[in-house]
């Protein structure tokens, strides 16, 4: 359902209609994405299709790669060359990219990755899911590394977060994920398509980029450090110092009517929307139910959650995921010593399957007794 986006950006500031998969593409383009590489896969393909036209129009780089493995390694190359670069895929394709992501993280290169999560494991189905949470937040690839992970729950956020993702990637020199799903990617909502403006006043210069070494020492982009002591260990320490910094600086979440709530639902992405609909119903029926919605899942907004408990000691928690239970580990880890385990309930489901406001209401009523 791509609304024609004018080349001269006359749509800027107006409410436009795009699919989530298209909004991320348009945001990327506005944020100065120089190159996009991907391989088709449902329910992500609209992103590639959108880019295939717009990038040609703008004389930027679009390659439909021969595979997801090739695509992520093109991302690696383009990023090393100093370009703003993005790729997108869905679950099985993201699995194939894990080696490449580990390389990009290890080489401290910026890039934006979108996973429009679908049902798994295996081929699964093409319906929405949230079962790639572990893969995204814990590193599905080998080695110690993290990716900043933003989770939109509206088309406006698809657009805004993608722009932010490019800036975060460049600022912290690391891969940034947009964790989308078959609902968010495929739905259409009006949103305001504002112009890009950098989120950091001083974006670091890419003086590490490969541009030919004229007038300077050669730049080397690598992840091999034969000697741990003076190489790999240092790299990992540097990475984790950076990660700690980000955990302090860039957690984000939304809280809705959590004050005085008897039960707080914790949910992200599409699920948080469904939960919100349920909460409205429940509130109407006099039930005090709130929503805690992480907008970043790495870094995880644990301190905010702990703070919330300080102000509301009576609340139970209900974690809702389109998975068999993954984010709930982050919830528990952050609430350790603060809330008892059995105060944290879970409502989840297997691959490619989503809750409805009704089933959530039922679950809430069950928990509240």
């Amino acid at each position: 359902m791509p609304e024609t986006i004018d080349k001269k950006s006359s749509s800027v500031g107006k409410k436009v209609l795009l699919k989530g998969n298209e909004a991320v593409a348009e945001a990327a383009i506005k944020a100065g994405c120089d190159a996009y590489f991907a391989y088709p896969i449902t329910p992500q393909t609209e992103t590639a299709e959108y880019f295939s036209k717009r990038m040609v129009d703008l004389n930027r780089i679009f390659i439909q790669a021969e595979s997801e493995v090739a695509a992520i390694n093109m991302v690696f190359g383009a990023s090393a060359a100093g370009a703003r670069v993005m790729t997108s895929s869905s679950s099985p394709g993201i699995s194939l990219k894990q080696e490449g992501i580990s390389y990009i993280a290890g080489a401290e290169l910026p890039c934006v990755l979108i996973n429009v999560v679908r049902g798994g494991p295996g081929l699964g189905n093409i319906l929405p899911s949230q079962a790639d949470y572990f893969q995204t937040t814990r590193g599905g690839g080998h080695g110690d590394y993290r990716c900043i992970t933003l989770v939109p729950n509206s088309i406006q956020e698809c657009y805004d977060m993608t722009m932010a993702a490019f800036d975060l990637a460049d600022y912290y020199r690391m891969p940034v994920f947009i964790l989308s799903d078959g609902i968010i990617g495929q739905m259409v909502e009006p949103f305001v398509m504002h112009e890009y403006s950098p989120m950091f006043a001083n974006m670091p210069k890419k003086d590490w980029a490969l541009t030919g070494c004229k007038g300077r020492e050669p730049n080397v982009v690598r992840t091999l450090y034969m000697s741990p002591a003076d190489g790999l260990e240092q790299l990992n320490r540097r990475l984790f110092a950076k990660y700690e910094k980000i955990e302090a600086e860039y957690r984000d979440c939304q809280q809705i009517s959590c004050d005085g709530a008897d039960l707080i639902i914790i949910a992200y992405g599409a699920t948080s929307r469904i939960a919100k609909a349920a909460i409205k119903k429940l509130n109407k029926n006099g039930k005090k139910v709130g929503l805690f919605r992480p907008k970043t899942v790495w870094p995880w907004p644990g301190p905010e959650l702990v703070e919330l408990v300080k102000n509301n000691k009576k609340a139970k928690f209900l974690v809702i995921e389109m998975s068999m239970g993954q984010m709930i580990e982050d919830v528990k880890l952050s609430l350790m010593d603060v809330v008892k385990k059995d105060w944290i309930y879970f409502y989840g489901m297997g691959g490619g399957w989503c809750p409805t406001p009704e089933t959530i209401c039922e679950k809430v009523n069950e928990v509240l007794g």
Partner: protein
Amino acid sequence: MSSIIKTQPESIADKSTHYCPGCGHGVMLRLIGEVVDELGIREDMILTAPVGCSVILYDYMNCDVIECAHGRAPAVGTAIKRVHPDKFVLVYQGDGDLAAIGTAEIIHAANRGENLSVIFVNNAVYGMTGGQMAPTTLIGQKTTTSPYGRTAKGMGKPIRVCEMMATLEETKYLERTSIHSIRNINKTKAAIKKAFLNQINGIGFSLVEVLSMCPVGWRLSPQEAQGYIESQMIDYFPLGVYKDLEY
């Protein structure tokens, strides 16, 4: 008055490599260095290093280098060249890297007609990991994973990369050379230069396959290794130009 008329090329770092005695990668390093010097492109060049014995090329070449994941140098090189069409991008690969794990990446970079120069060092073995069978290992050749010698049945015959790639429309220059003798080293240098000039002149995808000694992987002395190329490898991998489309 005395002057040095031949010495280590400027684009090569003045250090001892980690290559084993008699390793063909050493010869290749110097040849590339010479061509880079002659064309004066060191400062305009970006080298994609493979995973293989040449993985630490960044330690030896005085230019911008990216060390790629195993087999993916052509994908990495593709992206870099697209981002910097005015820079010179050199893709360096081994036979495990190019003809095994990276089969899809080299074929598609070639098929897209990326304006790249690929140096393909075919030493018929996985050098870095200690001498396992490669897609180019000869029939009968014993390696650590073909302890009874490679057989066509079950393992297949060695892949002839130039011949296979010649079927792709957008490949512009494909040549197989060797570095087991003076004459062949000189021919190899000429081929490298041509592949480089092709990129500089915007002609398109060029690949030079070089038969190269891996004495340690072959469990031979350096001299025996040269002889092995002469007497065994060239039979199966005929030297020569497989494609040359300058236009």
